[in-house]
């Protein structure tokens, strides 16, 4: 599905509207996150499907933050799926990026990927390629919710006991932009041990994801212990939705009820 994306990026680059386009490219026999700065590089542009749709997604939003921090006056283009668009909206609400300096080139995810992600909105507001498919509700959450308390507790304890404390869930997360991270606070979570304190480490992170997680699933994909982190954060997001009728990134401009740093919600 990359031809229409290529055409769009070509137009943005040739018009001088953007300094570069953050997307994916086929390089060295792998799929790489890549900043396209010239039109002739676009031949290798891909959307991140290696063996299955969207199986090679990268934390492009995170990379974008690095770029705009170094070059705040420039405009960049970026490849977005539904989740990435939510991420950019949420980042803007937390004053981490200037949405006027970003040109999104959207693609809609196929149903297969939407099912795998249990994504409520598997498409961005506007997209150049793909077709809008049905949103999917989270059966994984419902399945765990249906367990008895003890079973549920044991399930998570077993999952957390595999954690090797790589901090990959945080490192890959486009919404983790804090300068100081509670996970590294020695008084909260003792350093130097694996598994990290159970369940403090993971629940601390889950609490910090409340009102923030945009459900991209990169954390689960980055977890070397295959801990179903995405399911955990989906649950946290459901709780926030029930309490405050808020889901992060779905409504551009709307602030999280827990967003105190950026001012009180309206």
């Amino acid at each position: 599905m990359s031809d229409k994306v290529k055409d769009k990026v070509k137009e943005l680059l040739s018009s001088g509207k953007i300094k570069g386009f953050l997307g994916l490219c086929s390089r060295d026999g792998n799929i790489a996150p890549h900043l396209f700065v010239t039109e002739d590089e676009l031949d290798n542009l891909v959307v991140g499907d290696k063996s299955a749709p969207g199986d090679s997604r990268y934390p492009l939003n995170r990379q974008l933050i690095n770029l705009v921090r170094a070059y705040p006056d420039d405009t960049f283009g970026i490849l977005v799926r539904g989740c990435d668009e939510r991420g950019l909206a949420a980042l803007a609400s937390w004053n981490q990026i200037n949405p006027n300096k970003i040109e999104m080139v959207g693609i809609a995810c196929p149903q297969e990927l939407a099912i795998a992600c249990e994504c409520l909105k598997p498409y961005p507001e506007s997209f150049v390629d793909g077709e809008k498919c049905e949103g999917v509700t989270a059966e994984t959450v419902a399945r765990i919710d249906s367990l008895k308390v003890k079973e549920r507790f044991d399930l998570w304890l077993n999952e957390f006991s595999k954690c090797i404390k790589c901090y990959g869930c945080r490192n890959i997360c486009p919404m983790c932009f804090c300068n100081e991270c509670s996970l590294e606070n020695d008084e909260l979570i003792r350093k130097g041990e694996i598994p990290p304190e159970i369940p403090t480490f993971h629940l601390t992170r889950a609490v910090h994801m409340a009102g923030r997680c945009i459900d991209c699933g990169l954390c689960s994909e980055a977890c070397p212990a295959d801990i179903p982190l995405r399911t955990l954060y989906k649950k946290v997001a459901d709780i926030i939705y029930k309490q405050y009728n808020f889901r992060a990134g779905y409504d551009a401009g709307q602030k999280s009820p827990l967003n105190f740093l950026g001012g009180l919600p309206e």
Partner: protein
Amino acid sequence: MDYRTVLTTCTHCGCGCNFYLEVLDGKVIGTIPCKTSPTNEGKLCIKGWNVHEFIQSEKRLTQPLLRKDGELKEVSWDEALDFTAKRLREIKDTHGADSIGFLTSARVTNEENYLLQKFCRAAIGTNNVDHCARL
């Protein structure tokens, strides 16, 4: 502006995970695990995630050092290389090739390991080459 992602292999253990080093204007600013790697499938451990941090450490050696009057002093490459080659030659001529030993490294590339053992065997003329495989 020069922003690149360079695919390479981790140096922090024998798993051999692949990641992209994120380079902005000549500075390595991050590590991004490679999704299509057969060894790590887009995942890393704490050592891999932070491998970029030592590369441009202020404590890196940036100039050859030569011991003069008991102390290591910064010198030019020419001086350091000439000194090394000359002393190796003198010691070989005086005490024989087997008086010289080499420790090659489990941390440098295959090409560099090959070259050092070749230098040891073909130039010096001894098989005194080993590394920390056992340690």
